[in-house]
């Protein structure tokens, strides 16, 4: 099970600026999920889904570049988006634990995407009103792409949940597995609070309400049962990750680690 004890030491971040920290969180969520989803390329059950998965991964990696460029600009340590993606170790990543969970079967990949998209869309909607213009413009761009992601993942969760006995069972198992990770988005820390007070990010309750409403309605339409219990796995926002992240980084960062400064 994931190491996410709340008393675990907080790894050095290298940045304490709330805006930079927030941009890292957004960028790392997009980067790690984008990388995970890209693992499907060439392996999806049907061609259309292979293309859809690759497109979603591409959108997320594209958005990653904007967020990590912002993080690099704000922290002022002359680190590019590539430096931040390829040269940080696991403890310096700020993504939620949900996005680093293994793909599992197609159902689990979709359920993870759905739980993420259902947060991502209202988050980006809220961020478009940010008092920080650099956040608002990235959010404006990304929200248009993410509305397609949410449409697709919602549609497929309903079709597979309310599908055959086999697909229903797999979707329910995926939901049960992922549910403890699904609400880490809404566990605020002082950085979230400070940014919300400054009007730079929406208060998490303003994102939680549409998330709850959409997830509940979709699961109902899917004939899936909402898991019981309020346990939330957390730690990703402060760099305490599950064991899976290191393996992702080993693959993703190999080239830059082995051949520093290599260029395409």
């Amino acid at each position: 099970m994931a190491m996410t004890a709340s008393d675990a030491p907080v790894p050095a971040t290298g940045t304490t600026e709330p805006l930079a920290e927030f941009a890292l969180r957004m960028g790392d969520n997009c980067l790690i999920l984008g990388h995970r989803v890209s693992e499907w390329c060439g392996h999806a059950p049907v061609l259309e889904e292979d293309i859809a998965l690759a497109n979603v991964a591409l959108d997320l990696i594209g958005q990653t570049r904007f967020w990590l460029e912002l993080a690099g600009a704000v922290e002022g340590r002359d680190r590019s988006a590539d430096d931040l993606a390829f040269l940080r170790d696991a403890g310096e990543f700020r993504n939620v634990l949900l996005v680093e969970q293994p793909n599992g079967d197609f159902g689990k990949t979709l359920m993870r995407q759905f739980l993420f998209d259902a947060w991502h869309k209202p988050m980006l909607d809220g961020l478009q009103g940010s008092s920080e213009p650099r956040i608002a413009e990235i959010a404006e761009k990304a929200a248009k792409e993410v509305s397609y992601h949410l449409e697709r993942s919602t549609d497929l969760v309903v079709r597979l949940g309310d599908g055959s006995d086999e697909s229903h069972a797999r979707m329910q198992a995926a939901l049960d597995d992922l549910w403890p990770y699904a609400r880490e988005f809404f566990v605020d820390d002082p950085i979230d609070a400070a940014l919300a007070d400054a009007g730079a990010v929406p208060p998490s309750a303003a994102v939680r309400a549409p998330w709850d409403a959409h997830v509940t309605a979709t699961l109902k339409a899917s004939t899936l049962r909402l898991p019981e219990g309020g346990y939330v796995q957390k730690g990703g926002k402060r760099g305490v990750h599950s064991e899976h992240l290191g393996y992702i980084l080993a693959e993703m960062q190999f080239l830059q680690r082995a051949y520093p400064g290599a260029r395409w």
Partner: protein
Amino acid sequence: MATLARPAVEQIRSWLDQVPDPEIPVISLVDLGIIRDIRWDDDTLVVTVTPTYSGCPATSVINLEIETALRDHGIDKMRLERQLSPAWTTAWISERGRTRLRDYGIAPPIEGTAHCALGGEDGPTIVCPRCSSEATEMISRFGSTPCKASYRCTACLEPFDYFKCH
């Protein structure tokens, strides 16, 4: 002295109108609506470009092609700037661009539907670019490039791309 050699902005725009989109070569970068501004900053030409989709792999190729085209026309000092806001929308695709897309076999975007769901009862009616039938159905919201969705025509049975509203 250099300022005497600065070609007019409209001239430069017409040069860029000759540069094809790398993935859909029947329309130009100007038709696509991604050239947001062209201006001179002293003796440096500044071209402002907005990306279509955040992760579109054509973005870096587009920048390279802009640079190459302008160098071919004798412009040495230039700077490309990226502008995210206002975010690119298919409403900026020119009429000529739409006609060329249709002739090429890609259904052009239906404006005013940017935020509506594709497919389903409320989805836009996409006309088959080959036989003009309205009897079409969505196969996938995603297609061969980030900007397209996959459709099929149930009249002529041909699959086709729809340049989705954005």
